[in-house]
């Protein structure tokens, strides 16, 4: 069962790669554009830190580290799960979703595997560079265990992005296209680029327990920052990822049951 899906995913990927290689210029353009976009954000932080020493007690490299985790986590979402953005306007509205339902595989798997988004590689690249730059400046000694935890945290971060988008994209089953909602919620992740401690308590709780974007960057990063006071909460990150994925998948299945095609 599982091996069949792995083989299928490999075949889907191969098709996607062929498309990518066909349009090389566009591949480069996409990667470059995302890198530039991330770079603009980092440059902004750099400019601000040219004038201050610490932001509410957080140093430049700590902020960079948070930023890097957010970017890398998001790249997982961007490369492999980008199709979630298109559920409403490319699948349900034109009636293309029915096609997935008659195939002998899990419709969610088919839907996700339909696209591999090359543009996300730019984000991955920048994210790794940023983390690499910030790491030596944190007052923690990096051993194998720390590296392992970092990788787990980043993967968890990516899957929290996926779960949140999946949850709100699922609303499309009832309202045809939920993109405005998905997009608005996604914008909340902007908060997560900075230490949550700079925000009002209400915002912090909201981003921790309701829409858990706090676990996509700030909490995982805080685990590696001495004296941040969030080391304990940070360990919850993988748990939060698993719980949100299960919850989103449950919601997706409910949506599937309620789905009636846009008829013609």
């Amino acid at each position, binding site marked *: 069962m599982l091996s069949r899906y792995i083989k299928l995913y490999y075949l889907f990927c191969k098709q996607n790669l062929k498309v990518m290689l066909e*349009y090389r*210029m*566009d*591949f480069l*353009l*996409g990667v*470059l*554009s*995302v890198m*530039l*976009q991330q*770079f*603009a954000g980092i*440059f*902004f932080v750099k*400019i*601000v830190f*040219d*004038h*201050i*020493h*610490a*932001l*509410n007690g957080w140093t430049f490299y700590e902020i960079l580290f948070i930023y890097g985790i957010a970017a890398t986590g998001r790249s997982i979402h961007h490369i492999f799960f980008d199709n979630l953005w298109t559920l409403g306007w490319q699948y349900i509205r034109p009636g293309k979703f029915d096609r997935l339902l008659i195939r002998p595989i899990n419709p969610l798997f088919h839907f996700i595997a339909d696209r591999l988004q090359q*543009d996300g590689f730019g984000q991955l690249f920048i994210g790794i560079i940023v983390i690499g730059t910030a790491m030596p400046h944190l007052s923690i000694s990096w051993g194998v265990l720390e590296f392992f935890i970092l990788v787990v945290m980043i993967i968890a971060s990516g899957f929290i992005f996926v779960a949140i988008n999946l949850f709100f994209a699922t609303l499309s089953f009832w309202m045809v296209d939920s993109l*405005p*909602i998905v*997009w*608005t919620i996604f*914008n*909340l992740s*902007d*908060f997560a680029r*900075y230490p949550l401690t*700079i*925000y*009002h308590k209400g*915002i912090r709780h909201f981003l921790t327990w309701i829409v858990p974007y706090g676990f996509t960057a700030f909490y995982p990063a805080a685990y590696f920052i001495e004296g941040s006071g969030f080391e304990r909460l940070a360990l919850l990150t993988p748990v939060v990822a698993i719980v949100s994925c299960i919850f989103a998948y449950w919601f997706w299945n409910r949506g599937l049951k309620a789905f009636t095609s846009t008829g013609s």
Partner: protein
Amino acid sequence: MRKYVEFARVQMQVHAAYSAWFWANTFSILLRMLVIYFFWKAVYSSRTEIEGLPFEGMITYIIIAMFLQMFVSGVGQELAHTIKDGNVAIELMRPYNLITRLVAMDLGDKVIHFVRGALPLSILAFIFMDITLPTSWQSGLLFFISAFMGIWIGTFFDLLIAILAFWTINLWGLQVMKEAVISFFSGALVPLILFPEWFQTISLFLPFQAMVYVPVAIYTGILSGTEAWLALGSQVFWAVSLFVLLRVLWSIAIKKVTIFGG
């Protein structure tokens, strides 16, 4: 002229019909204002001024710049899609100038965005966020002229980039790249006076600072007197040059259409 006015009017009605996007936009802008506010509050928690700007001056600059940036681009997407799906060939046969039509529609879009979005939201910002009025009525007036020029320059630049859709299919990448470059060099994220010297010198020779930085710097009094008039002069220069460049590139690109269509 009448037909273009009609296009602008229809576009306003279209906009009013999609209320989901309107609310999503409004809500997202509110979120961004919150992030900006708390971020800068934290920056200023241990000091009273940066490069001579107190907190009120900074937050005023950032918020006004954010609003202005939303108006700087827009119409390019539409043109790029028309090119990509091939409709441009049909559009060119219709009895109007495609570019003028798009600009007119974009204008309608912007007017309605201003009335329904930017205006109420900026009033909110005035009430809750320590935002100040222009330093004098002259600078207020100058700001409006300059902002208008900035939007004009932004629109031409947007169209120039969109024409590249004749050569690439990755419209999303094109869009993201353009946005990144604009927020980089236009001073939409921070006032350019905070940038290192060399960066300021480079951006002096680029059209981007004329889109956002110049108008907002006039508003907040960073630029005043002769400096403000000089900056306005550079805006006129960019508006004219980009307009000419657009004409040239468009006529070259159109030739490609005839080859394409056979």
